C-alpha cells in the first residue's frame, strides 16, 4: 500500500504544478505590468512568441527534472527499506542524456536564430529615419523628407520634484514625438553624439545601442495606430532616466498631412542666415534654448552644479570674456566632453544662447551680442 501512495502523490503534485504554471503567465499577460507590452509590430509578436516558447521548454525541463528527482527521493526513501542499485557506466543512459539536451538546444537555437536574423534584416525599407542620442534627448532626422527635430522630456520639473501630482505619462512624455506611418517598414539608423545611449521601443520589439562614431541599423513596421512609449536603455549620465522615447503611429493620410504641416511650419520658422538679430530677440530665443539644453547642468538660474563640474555662469570668466572663446567652448565643448560640444544646434540657437548667458542673472558682458554670422564663421 505504502509503495502505491508515492506515485499518486507525485502525480497530484505534478498536476498542481502544471496547473499553476499555466495559470500564472496567463494572469500575468492580462496585466501588462508583469509582462511584455502588447506587441504592435510583427517583430514584437515574434519576440513575445519566442519568449513564450522558450518559457514552456523551461517549464517542461523544470517539471521533468524535479518530477523525476522528487519521485526518486520519495519512492526510494530509507523508511520503505529501499536498497541502492550498484552499477557503473551505462552506455544507453549516457547516449540518451547527451542527445536530449542536444535536441533541446537545437529546438531553442533554431527559432532564436531566425528571430535575430529577422531583427537585422533592414533591407527594402519604405522610409529611413536617423536617430541620434544626446545627453539627454533624442534627435530624429527624416532622411527622405529632409527635416529633423529634437525630442525632449515634457514632464515638468515640478512633478519630478514632487511639487505637483504626477501625470499619467510621468517621465514617458516628450515635446516632439517621432511620427511614423502605419504598416511602413521604417529603417532606423541609430547613433549618438556624445556617449553610448540605447533606443528602446518595447512594443515594436526594437532595442539598439546608440554608439558615438558608429551607425547601427534596425527596423520596425508598426501595425496599429497609437502612441507608444520607450526609454533610453543604456546609462548615459545624470539625466539617463529623463530622455524617454515616444513614437506616434499615424494612418498613411494623417502621416502625409503631418509631414506637410511640419515642412511648412519649418519653412515659416526657418532663419534667414544673413539677418542681423536684435538683442531682445536673441535673448528671448536663448532663454528657451538654455532651459532645454543647458539647464540640466548649469541650472535655470545659471548657478551651476559643482558636483557635475558645471561651473556657475553668473560672473563666469568665459561668459563675461571675449565672445570668440565662448563660441568655441559651446561649439566644441571642453574638459573631455564634461561640457559637451553643441555643434548640432543651429547658428542662430548657439548665438542666442550665448547672448542669453551674457545678459542674464545680472551678467553684463562688454561684448553682449553674438550674431549667428559670427557662429557660422567660428565653425570649422
Amino acid at each position, binding site marked *: 500500500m505504502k509503495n502505491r501512495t508515492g506515485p499518486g502523490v507525485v502525480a497530484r503534485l505534478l498536476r498542481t504544478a502544471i496547473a499553476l504554471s499555466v495559470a500564472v503567465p496567463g494572469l500575468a499577460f492580462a496585466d501588462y505590468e508583469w509582462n511584455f507590452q502588447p506587441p504592435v509590430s510583427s517583430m514584437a509578436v515574434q519576440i513575445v512568441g519566442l519568449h513564450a516558447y522558450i518559457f514552456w521548454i523551461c517549464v517542461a525541463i523544470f517539471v521533468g527534472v524535479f518530477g523525476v528527482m522528487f519521485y526518486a527521493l520519495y519512492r526510494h526513501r530509507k523508511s520503505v527499506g529501499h536498497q541502492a542499485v550498484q552499477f557503473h557506466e551505462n552506455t544507453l543512459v549516457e547516449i540518451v542524456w547527451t542527445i536530449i539536451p542536444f535536441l533541446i538546444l537545437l529546438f531553442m537555437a533554431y527559432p532564436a536564430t531566425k528571430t535575430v536574423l529577422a531583427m537585422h534584416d533592414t533591407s527594402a525599407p519604405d522610409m529611413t529615419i536617423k536617430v541620434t542620442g544626446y545627453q539627454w534627448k533624442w534627435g530624429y532626422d527624416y532622411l527622405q523628407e529632409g527635416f529633423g527635430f529634437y525630442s525632449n522630456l515634457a514632464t515638468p520639473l515640478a*512633478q*519630478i*520634484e*514632487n511639487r505637483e501630482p*504626477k501625470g499619467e505619462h*510621468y*517621465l514617458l512624455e516628450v515635446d516632439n514625438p517621432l511620427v511614423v506611418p502605419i504598416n511602413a517598414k521604417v529603417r532606423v539608423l541609430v547613433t549618438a553624439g*556624445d*556617449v*553610448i545611449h540605447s533606443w528602446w521601443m518595447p512594443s515594436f520589439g526594437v532595442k539598439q545601442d546608440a554608439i*558615438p562614431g558608429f551607425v547601427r541599423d534596425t527596423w520596425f513596421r508598426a501595425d496599429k495606430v497609437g502612441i507608444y512609449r520607450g526609454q533610453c536603455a*543604456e*546609462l*548615459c*549620465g*545624470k*539625466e*539617463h*532616466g*529623463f530622455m524617454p522615447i515616444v513614437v506616434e503611429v499615424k494612418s498613411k493620410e494623417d502621416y502625409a498631412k503631418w509631414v506637410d504641416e511640419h515642412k511648412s511650419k519649418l519653412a515659416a520658422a526657418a532663419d534667414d542666415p544673413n539677418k542681423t538679430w536684435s538683442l531682445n530677440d536673441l535673448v528671448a530665443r536663448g532663454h528657451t534654448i538654455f532651459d532645454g539644453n543647458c539647464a540640466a547642468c548649469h541650472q535655470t538660474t545659471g548657478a551651476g552644479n*559643482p*558636483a*557635475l*563640474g558645471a561651473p556657475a555662469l553668473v560672473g563666469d570668466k568665459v561668459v563675461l570674456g571675449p565672445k570668440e572663446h565662448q563660441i568655441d567652448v559651446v561649439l566644441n565643448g571642453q*574638459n*573631455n*566632453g*564634461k561640457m559637451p560640444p553643441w555643434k548640432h544646434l543651429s547658428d542662430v540657437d548657439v548665438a542666442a544662447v550665448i547672448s542669453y548667458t551674457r545678459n542674464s542673472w545680472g551678467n553684463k558682458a562688454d561684448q553682449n551680442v553674438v550674431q549667428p554670422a559670427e557662429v557660422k564663421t567660428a565653425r570649422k
Partner: protein
Amino acid sequence: MSSTPHTIAPGEHALDHGYAHHPGGIIRWITTTNHKDIGTMYLWFSFTMFIVGGLMAMTIRAELFKPGLQIVNPEFFNSLTTLHGLIMIFGALMPGAVGFANWMIPMQIGAPDMAFARMNNWSFWLLPPAALLLILSLFVPGGAAAGGWTLYPPLTVQAGMGMDLTIFAIHIMGASSIMGSINIITTILNLRAPGMTLHGSLRPICCSP
C-alpha cells in the same frame, strides 16, 4: 652560548626557534602568514564590503520606492549603482571566495598552509587600501564614478577624479585577486598530501571558488 650548560634532548632543539612566539594584537594580523588568520580577515573584509554595498542597494531601492526624486539626486544615484556593483564584485564576492578557499583548501587537501604564505598576506592587505580609495571617491569634487560598473567610455571620460580613484582601486583589487588565485592553484597542484589525487582535490565541494 649560555653559561649554564644543559643537555638538549633530540627534538627539543626545534622548539627553540620561536615558532610559538607569535606577536599579539594588531601586529599579529598585519604580519600573519597563517592561512586561517588570512582567511578570517578575507571573510570579515568581504562581510564589511557586503554591508557597505548592501547599504547602497537599500538606498537605491528606497529612492525607487516612489516615483519622483526623494532621497538622492540623479548623479549620486548613478554613483551608488556604480559603486554598489564594483563593491559587491571586487569587495564582497571575490574576497569571500578567496577567504573560504584560504580557510578550507589546505585542510581539505592536507597541506600545512597555502603555497605562498607571505604573498597570501599581501594579497589580503592590498584590499583595505583599495576599498578605502573606492569609498573615498564618494567625497571628492565631481563625485564618485557614475557611469555604471561596466565603466563604458566615453561616459567615463566625462567623470572627475572619482573615476581616477576607481581605476586605481580596481587595479589593486585585480592584483589582489590574481595573487589569491595563483596561491590557490599552486596549493592544489603542489601541496596535496601523499595519496590525495588531483581529481580528489578538485571535487566541487572542495574548490568551488
